[in-house]
């Protein structure tokens, strides 16, 4: 093969994927490791990579203790109720107590944060969100990461982590290839911080044809954070906790600012309020602890996002769709109208394109909302990801094994979507988690934990052969192409992705089956996934671009298997509105007030599942915190 092998040796901290989590890690690592070698390997170009490529119009996680607004424990309670109790409160508390310092630095670096002209405090969109002019949010944090890193390798798709050949279960770097030159890159590192983001496109999207890429989470979020860590044998948690979003139809435009700042609201096709109608039945499914509209009304306790989805889904199924966002009132104010458009341009340009193309004028027409296909990630209103150690001053013994944000693989850390149990971190919280992981990684090295790492040539060669196999396969069999893409000996990445999306949708509880699944369906899904995995061994890639798609697909498949295994394990419907277990439609706190933890044996591919205890932050006086 004509591709060169390029080895980068003696790395102390390798950041694999530099979105919000990875940039935070690279930046902070320089402070605690001033003489350490910090290297970034990023699939795209760091200036615009990741979920924040387009920018953001709000920072969704900011306490404002400086302005006397909220304390970290308030945020923990909020995330906990929103996720129906299932969060890692140690990790959340830790993120929340640091997140403001991250945001204050962003402002100092030039990120335009809006201020409330009356109070001088940051302009609030909601209790946790502050408004920004964030078109250049990603380029700004990328500058910070570039200043700290010794080297940034753009356009490297990381495919595998390297493991130490001297000590079991210890990481030793990563490998991948350049998506432009095709060269093989080997990064030998003492620690790796994975920030490779969540997973879009594992469930069939509602979008079709040319617009199939118009999904909510970025199409390049290939589940690589999960794929990399699962392959290395790291334990995962809450992978069943996929998220479904209620968003503007087709454009996936954000609704947060509309609800919170512009004070718009939803109604059914006949102009009626519908949510409250569905709550009495729903309360019977989930219990009063989780849904108590009266208490919510009195105390402003939020109604969990999934439960509001549930009402929307039920109303549409009852034949009273579509659901509309009532904009006609708010948009009579020209100032609010402008904010509405800016909100799209700053973070979801496609929604502005859609309204322009379909002549939607929200002043005269209430646009449609719908629920999205499911996504798997760990920093938005959901908490899938790796099972990580918390900080020593907060975490109980079951949640602590030495280094903050370290996975169950030694020297392997995570940030952002990669870390499980930490929903509602968002952009600022993901960056903060990167900072925490970086400090811990430096300490891990300084404590001598990374001594004596050895990577055999055999491992490097084996991975190389594996990476380029799809190109080989294509070359061998291309003469048997029957027509277009049809070949009896291999499938191409697009065909594989279509198969994955279809089976996840139909068996795993996707949009076309109204998010419904059960034990039988899940078992069939797992069986079909296994044969897809076998076919992936024979995947063909015509060129380097297809090779990228092939590896993204492999990461997506690993993520999907984990999702199905977890969904099968948790025998209850914990988050109606995200998904339903038809064979266990009720929330079951007696058996399932626990976190789910899995491990896939890297040798055999076998899954083991376990329950981990849930700890809650309670005030010392023991009254309900």
């Amino acid at each position, binding site marked *: 093969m004509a591709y060169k092998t390029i080895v980068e040796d003696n790395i102390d901290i390798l950041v694999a994927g530099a979105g919000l989590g990875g940039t935070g890690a690279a930046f*902070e690592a320089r*402070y*605690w490791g*001033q003489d350490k070698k910090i290297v970034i390997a990023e699939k795209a170009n760091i200036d*615009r990579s990741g979920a924040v*490529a387009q920018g953001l119009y709000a920072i969704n996680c900011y306490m404002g*203790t400086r302005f006397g607004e909220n*304390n*970290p*424990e308030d945020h923990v309670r909020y995330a906990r109720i929103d996720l129906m*109790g299932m969060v890692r409160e*140690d990790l959340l*508390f*830790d993120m929340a*107590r*640091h997140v*403001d*310092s991250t945001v*204050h630095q962003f402002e100092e*670096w*030039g*990120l*335009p944060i809006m201020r409330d002209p009356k109070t001088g405090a940051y302009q609030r969109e909601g209790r946790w969100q502050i408004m920004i002019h964030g078109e*250049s949010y990603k380029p700004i944090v990328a500058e910070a990461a570039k200043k*700290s890193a010794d080297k940034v390798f753009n356009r490297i798709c990381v495919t595998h982590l390297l493991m130490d050949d001297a000590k079991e279960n210890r990481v030793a770097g990563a490998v991948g290839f350049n998506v432009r030159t095709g060269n093989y890159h080997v990064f030998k590192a003492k620690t790796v911080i994975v920030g490779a983001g969540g997973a879009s496109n594992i469930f069939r999207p509602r*979008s*079709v*044809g*040319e*617009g*199939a*890429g*118009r*999904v909510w989470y*970025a*199409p*390049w979020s290939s589940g690589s954070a999960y794929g990399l860590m699962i392959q290395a044998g790291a334990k995962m948690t809450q992978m069943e906790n996929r998220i479904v979003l209620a968003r503007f139809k*087709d454009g996936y435009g954000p609704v947060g600012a509309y609800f919170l700042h512009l004070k718009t609201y939803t109604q059914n096709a006949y102009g009626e309020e519908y949510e409250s109608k569905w709550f009495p039945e729903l309360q019977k499914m989930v219990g009063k602890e989780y849904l108590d509209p009266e208490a919510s009304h009195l105390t402003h306790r939020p109604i969990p996002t999934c439960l509001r989805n549930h009402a929307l889904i039920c109303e549409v199924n009852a034949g009273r769709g579509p659901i509309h966002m009532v904009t006609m009132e708010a948009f009579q104010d020209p100032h609010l109208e*402008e904010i509405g*458009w*800016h909100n799209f*341009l700053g973070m979801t*340009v*496609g929604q*502005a*394109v859609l309204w*322009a*193309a379909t002549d939607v*004028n929200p002043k005269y027409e209430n646009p449609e909302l719908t629920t999205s296909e499911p996504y798997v990630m760990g920093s938005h209103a959901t908490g899938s990801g790796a099972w990580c150690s918390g900080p020593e*001053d*907060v975490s109980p013994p079951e949640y602590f094994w030495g280094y903050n944000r370290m996975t169950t693989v030694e020297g392997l850390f995570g940030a952002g979507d990669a870390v499980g149990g930490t929903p509602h971190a968002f952009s600022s919280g993901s960056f903060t988690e990167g900072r925490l992981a970086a400090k811990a990684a430096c*300490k891990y090295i300084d404590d001598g934990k990374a001594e004596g790492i050895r990577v055999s040539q055999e491992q490097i060669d084996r991975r190389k052969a594996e990476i380029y196999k799809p190109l080989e396969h294509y070359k061998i069999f291309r003469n048997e192409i029957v027509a277009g893409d049809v070949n009896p000996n291999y499938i191409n990445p697009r065909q594989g992705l279509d198969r994955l999306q279809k089976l996840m949708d139909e068996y795993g509880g996707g949009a076309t089956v109204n998010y419904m699944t059960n034990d039988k369906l899940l078992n069939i899904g797992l069986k079909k996934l296994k044969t897809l995995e076998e076919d992936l061994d024979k995947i063909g890639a015509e060129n380097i*671009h297809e090779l990228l*798609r092939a590896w993204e697909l492999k990461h997506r498949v690993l993520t999907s298997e984990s999702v199905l295994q977890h969904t099968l394990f948790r025998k209850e419907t914990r988050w109606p509105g995200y998904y339903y277990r038809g064979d266990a439609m009720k929330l079951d706190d007696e058996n399932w*007030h626990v976190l789910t933890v899995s491990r896939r044996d890297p040798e055999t591919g076998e899954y083991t599942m376990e329950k981990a205890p849930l*700890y*809650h*932050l*309670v*005030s010392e006086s023991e009254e309900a915190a």
Partner: protein
Amino acid sequence: MHIDPTLRRAYNIEPNMCWECYSCVKACPMDAIDVRGYADFAPLGHSVRVQRDEEKGVIAWRIKSRNGETDLNLLAPITTKPWGKAIPQLKDEAGPTQEERDSQLLFNEPKYIRMDDGDIHTLESAGLKMKSGVYY
């Protein structure tokens, strides 16, 4: 985006994996890239164009609807500082003490948490503890 060697034009090699994020549009120094909405739900005849200027620190948008009734020019700041200048080089900062290494603090903390002398939150300072079970 790739370049077509015959036509010598840039083109999107995989529209159905495009997020319509406009990163390529913003990055092109010649304003050579235009976007039309996806064929499967966006009728023809609209336009959303953009110009981003790091020097001036602003981004300018123009939105034109298909029927021409909406024609908006919108301007937003993208930074408040000269580009990249306000970010510290941490290699040159005074390094952390051992005490700081052993603490829970990050760079610039505790100062930057509240921008005053307040300290970092701990379970103790907040009067909290972690308890296993169903408690809320």
